């Protein structure tokens, strides 16, 4: 399912909203998660899962084309951990 399909499904379940309002709705949900994480906030959604940042250490990498060693800077990556309910739902 793509975001466009998600928006379509949402607007089918709730016809009080126009398509473009539904689009803003869906975008707002994901944008607010993105914004919160960027500020270093953790997101916990009951029954679904949690999002937080994981720190990656600086490491030595290699340019696969030239074989040259390069420093890969330390960085943060978004990490999602499925909640209990979602885990069980998917594995049943």
């Amino acid at each position, binding site marked *: 399912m*793509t*975001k466009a399909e998600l928006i379509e499904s949402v607007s089918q379940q709730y016809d009080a909203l126009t398509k473009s309002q539904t689009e803003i709705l869906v975008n707002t949900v994901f944008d607010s998660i993105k914004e919160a994480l960027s500020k270093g906030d953790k997101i916990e959604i009951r029954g679904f899962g949690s999002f937080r940042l994981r720190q990656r250490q600086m490491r030595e990498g290699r340019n696969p084309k030239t074989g040259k060693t390069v420093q890969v800077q330390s960085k943060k990556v978004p990490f999602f951990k499925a909640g209990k309910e979602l885990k069980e739902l998917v*594995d049943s």
Partner: protein
Amino acid sequence: MRKADIANEVFEKVGLSKKESADMLEVILNLIKEVLRKGDTVKIAGFGNFVVRHKKARKGRNPKTGEEIGISPRKVVTFRPSQVFKKHVNT
């Protein structure tokens, strides 16, 4: 940040009532869960993909006792953040 905080963002930006905002968030989450339950992928442009992965059976070990135990095959949800999302958290 919790569900109520996300619903509040929706309330402020979309112009739904507080109740509707909370309900709509629930609708979205349930739709995503339903797709994942069927084993399908959910792709959100600019955010990332939720993918169901099939794990094979493997042998594990109880780290406390050192005892070997079988781990049954299972399905798990993984999230692959999009390039945009990854860049966003590092700026």
